[in-house]
């Protein structure tokens, strides 16, 4: 479990989401969402299927764009910027369903992650990813599509890390993975946060693991935030336990 952060007044507000509303056509998916992410912390967003978690993640990335509200990243309003512009501002995302390039090798996938970076930094970035996920090093010449689910998730995170992000957005990294692999992936995320001070915004259905890992958490129901607090607080709340954790804690 991560330590509680108590020096918020000294920390930079990396990402600030204020009153964001997102629509798919006429259907409102987000109803005025407020989320803050401070530098160096792991923030998780939990909620049921269809609550709007992934929509919030995609709205941060600008696809779809928020109809109203404001998203500020490191002092810049990124609400109406195109996706590629947002993603080249030291934000990296490991999208839902991993979306690795299945026909390309592990090396090529990692290269794609660093496509906007200075080629001189490629080797050091590669070494870091291989250190974090030694399995990827073993599989480096293998086609992405032939990796197992857990390895593909490692590759998706590794690819995101290749761009040396300040903020890492992870959309359901535990999706469809065996509990043991989920533990490995979450341990790697925690390690990145501790050793590199990487800020992580994590969208998860696996509330138990996510809240144990995160410094702070938000609970989303029907497109609005209903609860927030430190991971420990949320874990002990009866509503959270009954709605998201019953039978899920292992």
């Amino acid at each position, binding site marked *: 479990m991560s330590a509680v952060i108590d020096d918020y007044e000294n920390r930079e507000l990396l990402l600030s989401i204020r009153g964001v509303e997102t629509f798919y056509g006429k259907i409102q998916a987000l109803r005025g969402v407020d989320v803050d992410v401070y530098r160096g912390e792991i923030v998780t967003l939990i909620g049921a299927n269809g609550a709007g978690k992934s929509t919030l993640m995609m709205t941060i*990335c600008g*696809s779809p764009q928020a109809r109203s509200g404001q998203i500020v990243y490191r002092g810049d309003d990124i609400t109406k910027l*195109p*996706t*590629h512009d*947002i*993603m*080249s501002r030291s934000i*990296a*995302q490991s*999208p839902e369903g991993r*979306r*690795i*390039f*299945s*026909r*390309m*090798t592990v*090396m*090529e996938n990692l*290269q*794609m*992650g660093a*496509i*906007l970076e200075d080629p001189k930094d490629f080797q050091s970035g590669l070494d870091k990813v291989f250190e974090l996920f030694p399995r990827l090093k073993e599989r*480096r*010449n*293998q*086609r992405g*599509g*032939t990796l197992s689910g857990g390895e593909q998730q490692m590759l998706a995170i590794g*690819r995101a890390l290749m*761009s040396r992000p300040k903020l890492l957005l992870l959309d359901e990294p535990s999706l469809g993975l065996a509990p043991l692999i989920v533990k490995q992936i979450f341990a790697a995320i925690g390690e990145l946060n501790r050793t590199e001070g990487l800020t992580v915004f994590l969208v998860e259905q696996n509330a138990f693991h996510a809240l144990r890992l995160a410094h702070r958490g938000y609970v989303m129901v029907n497109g609005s935030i209903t609860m927030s607090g430190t991971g420990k607080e949320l874990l002990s709340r009866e509503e959270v336990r009954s709605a998201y954790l019953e039978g899920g804690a292992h």
Partner: protein
Amino acid sequence: METTNQPTASNRPEGAELESEARRDAMQGEPPFTEAPPEDSRFVRSLKEAGITAALVGALTVFFFIFRTDIGSGGLDLTLRPELWLVWMGIAFGARFLLSYFIFRAEEPITRYFKRPSASRRKPLPIGKIFGVAMLIVAIFLPVLLDTFLPRQNRYLLDLSILILTYVMLGWGLNIVVGLAGLLDLGYVAFYAVGAYSFALLSTNFDLGFWVCLPMAGLFAALWGIMLGFPVLRLRGDYLAIVTLAFGEIIRVVLLNWYEFTGGPNGLLGIPKPTLFGLEFSRGDDGFAAYFGIDYDPIQRFVFLYYIILALALLTNFVTMRMRKLPVGRAWEALREDEIACRALGINTVNVKLSAFATGAMFGGFAGSFFATRQGFISPESFTFIESAIILAIVVLGGLGSQLGVVIASVVMIGGIELLRNLTVLEAVFGAGFDPTQYRMLIFGLAMVAIMVWKPRGLISTRIPSVFYKEKKKIGADLVSQGEGH
């Protein structure tokens, strides 16, 4: 009640044992089973099967081959052709016998040699590479080879080679758009037309030479590629295909109807021939032959054209291969795989798509201006949809994204169709007046179906990664999800 308690043969232990013994005996073929009849030898069985096949063929074709009716004076003339019938039965017999003897009934079918040896047993030869280099060498020395071995058909074969190379170049150009970037383009011929008309109009109106106009034509085509690219940026797959198809037709219809500018259906005449540093390939005193003090021969111009298109095609290939290793080329390939992931990595997919369209269109434009200078005359008729279809077929049959596959497919499709013209042998079989070229579309279709059944991802369906960590490894395409990234 009494009967249910009565022990039966199967629920008593010893009874079950007896039963299983009986079953074991039965399995070993003891009575009451009769012995299987002794098997015929491989030769006899093959003969029998061949006989059945021949009889079937004979029965089915008896009326078609033996009796031939022609309209004669006062009714039908009947001619008997039993020898044709016998020949076909013989062919069926022989073919079936060979198939049965060597493949179906053989202990080790000879087809085992065609199967891919497993990777663990031996290191596979870099066949693709060797084949590619061999083809390149043949291509470079082709005019010499033709002159030495087939001097009588020299001109015809050289002309055919030029045609094939034009399609190779077009295939390589389209391969950038379809094979690498995964954007299905059914209107590629539009860029071919833009290149051809750009060159023709520039040269006839402003008296410019081929080498000046060539880059300009490529530039114009690239511009049109971008113009097509903009409206279709949001489209994928089928929708993109339909819009590009419409674009190809629009260009052709405009060329057809803008009479004052393009000459309409009459086309454009008098397009100049390319020169070698200002030397024309003509009989005159300032021609190529006179300058080098050799005898004039019209073939010299063909050889020159051949080397131009070879150089242009190789340039296309070279640029594509280099592009694949650059970030933009890698982004093309990634775009084909997953557009959303590309955006998530900060890639501007608009620019990537437009660059793919523009690069592909540029090579189409080069090929178009070469076409114009070779023909000396162009009209909208040369740029119909069937051209787009043939180029796309070459790319798909060769294997999307495979450079060597495009070459093989071009040689087979373009060369193969031409070859059909020379198959006078078939006339003997199907009767005089049988024109094999009439059936070329049928054969075309059959070939496509056959390739798609046996090699659903094209003749060469592996891609070589653009970056290696110590060793090269080919990647089979068979397990890759289809339709992604279109």
